[in-house]
């Protein structure tokens, strides 16, 4: 099996979904939409199928729950051959979320979520409890139970769509561009929420998108598909970005793969720099003292709730007359600890003195990152890959000899 070659060494999880030589030829079409596709998807991982439109990624996904019947090949779910079992029963075991969400407009939110549990014959009380639990999970107020989908915003509908798909607690979720029709800001938030949710629920998720950035963000592994669902590369986002298997992958990733790679690390993963801090209520002497002892030119002032307020330099505290709350510069360029390095770097570039303040989710000061810290983090990322591919970093980033170096992985 070619999958073995790219299997992460650390991966010990069970195979949840196995596709074996799957093909689909639609009637009245010469070319197969999917041709001889084989892949393994492990329990608890998010696998993103990504590729240009018409590459067969949606067809591939719909063959997993047999909304599209494969022309040949076999599908295994939890080790069981499900190619020929009753497809309605099969689908009740697999959650399904689509871009248009497809909530039933004539049913209340509660009835929408209860769809699969009712088909499975759950008791009323159990279904009702499950609805409450799911609404809480996706962060929708329980008062929405008896509302209708048209009364909800796009983001809320999407959350209900996810809740409905998870209603009967299926081990597998199929998601077809689930955030595709949502505005960028809400999309970003829903993606973050969903990743947090996944930490808890640990579902096996097959996620289809055409957006490589979304794939990099969401995927534990990414399958980049070419025409007829031919796998161009099936690997972790890190590896795909640093080590594209062929020209197609390289083109598809587009520009700045190394920068995109930064979006995979979070601020909380790196060491924040030690920075002198003082209170707004401290005296000028104390602030001057801290500045001198630390050897840094600036001190960060926090308010009584540990929230960063102002940067002050030596010249700002020379005279005792100015109140600390008004001197120096306001502390902007603040990032949350779970922000990724890509966004952090972006914040730093636009910030004063090229550093970003890290806060927790309640805006309390955690530390400061500057360019030096980020560079250090980038450095620690490098050797690991170097060992793996045994190729000098400067060549890896040149983007010309990729195919030679990764010939073993190419398919």
């Amino acid at each position: 099996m070619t999958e073995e070659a790219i299997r992460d060494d650390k991966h010990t999880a069970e195979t949840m979904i196995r596709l074996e030589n799957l093909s689909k030829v639609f009637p009245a079409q010469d070319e197969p939409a999917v041709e001889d596709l084989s892949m393994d998807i492990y329990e608890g991982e998010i696998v993103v199928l990504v590729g240009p439109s018409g590459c067969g990624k949606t067809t591939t996904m719909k063959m997993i729950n047999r909304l599209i019947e494969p022309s040949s090949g076999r599908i295994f779910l939890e080790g069981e051959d499900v190619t020929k079992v009753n497809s309605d029963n099969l689908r009740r075991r697999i959650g399904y979320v689509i871009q248009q969400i497809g909530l039933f407009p004539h049913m209340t939110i509660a009835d929408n979520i209860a769809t699969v549990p009712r088909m499975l014959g759950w008791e009323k009380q159990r279904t009702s409890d499950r609805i409450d639990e799911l609404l809480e999970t996706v962060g929708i107020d329980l008062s929405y139970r008896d509302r209708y989908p048209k009364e909800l915003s796009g983001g809320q509908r999407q959350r209900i769509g996810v809740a409905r798909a998870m209603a009967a607690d299926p081990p597998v979720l199929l998601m077809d561009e689930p955030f595709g029709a949502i505005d960028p800001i809400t999309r970003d938030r829903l993606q973050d929420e969903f990743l947090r949710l996944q930490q808890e629920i640990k579902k096996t998720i097959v996620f289809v998108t055409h957006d490589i950035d979304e794939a990099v963000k969401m995927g534990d592994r990414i399958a980049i598909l070419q025409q007829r669902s031919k796998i161009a590369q099936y690997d972790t986002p890190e590896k795909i970005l640093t080590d594209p298997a062929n020209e197609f992958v390289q083109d598809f990733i587009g520009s700045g793969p190394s920068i995109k790679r930064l979006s995979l690390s979070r601020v909380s993963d790196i060491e924040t720099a030690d920075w002198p801090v003082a209170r707004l209520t401290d005296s000028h002497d104390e602030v001057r003292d801290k500045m001198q002892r630390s050897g840094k030119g600036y001190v960060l002032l926090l308010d009584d709730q540990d929230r960063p307020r102002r940067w002050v330099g030596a010249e700002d505290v020379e005279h005792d007359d100015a109140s600390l709350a008004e001197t120096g510069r306001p502390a902007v360029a603040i990032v949350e600890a779970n922000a990724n390095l890509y966004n952090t770097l972006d914040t730093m570039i636009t910030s004063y003195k090229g550093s970003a303040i890290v806060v927790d989710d309640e805006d309390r000061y955690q530390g400061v990152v500057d360019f030096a810290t980020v560079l250090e983090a980038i450095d620690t990322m490098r050797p690991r890959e170097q060992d793996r591919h045994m190729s000098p970093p400067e060549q890896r980033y040149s983007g010309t000899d990729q195919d030679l170096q990764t010939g073993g992985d190419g398919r």
Partner: protein
Amino acid sequence: MTVRQEPSEKGAAGAPRFLRYLGMPVFLGLVCLALYLYVSSQQLDSIEKRILNTGFLFSRVIEHIELAAISTVIVVVLAVSTGILLTRPGTRRVTPAIIGLANIGQAVPSIGLLVLFAIVWDFGFWPAIVALVAYSFLAILRNTMVGLQQVDRSTIEAARGMGMTKTAVLFRIELPLAVPIILAGIRTALIINVGTATLGTFVDAGGLGTVIDTGIRLGRDSVLIVGSVLTGVLALSIDWLASVAEDILRPRGL
């Protein structure tokens, strides 16, 4: 007087709808009253007396309602099920032929259709019913098909993707979502049938057409007026009932 508090508590939001529902019956009641006063003010001869009495008119109204109601029930069953069948994949090839047939049913003038059925088959109630069914079939068939076809594909895909059987999707998703459009078709068919049932008299099927026809043939204006006004009142009452039914049966959330 404490009883009065309850409706007043419902407030402004309930009032317009309540008035909207009440307006038509009040108007029709007034028309009937005016008709009664008109007839009472006339000197009736023996022919008029034979027709313009409660017993005779009541029987004609019942006949008329029977013609319209039974034909509509039959056409709803036939046309809705045909509409469902014609929107299933696999029957697409026969769809144009069936629509063509239904078109002929509606295109032929109704009196022609009635008389044709009477000549070919028999005079009386059932041939009239068949003619009415043929005449109003298209209205419901077309609305059923449009109603089912306008259901969002993604809604159906989501339902199928969650493991609903095709039958469950039809009855729990497609039909409920098509209800408003199907109901509009049924209302149209009902109105067509109430109107066309007046022609039932020519094939000996009774109804209010008998009153109108007698009025014309015997030159009794009062009889003609009573027949016409009652037909109008009946048609408007049924249309009103249908509109109330549409409001009640429309699924919430749409």
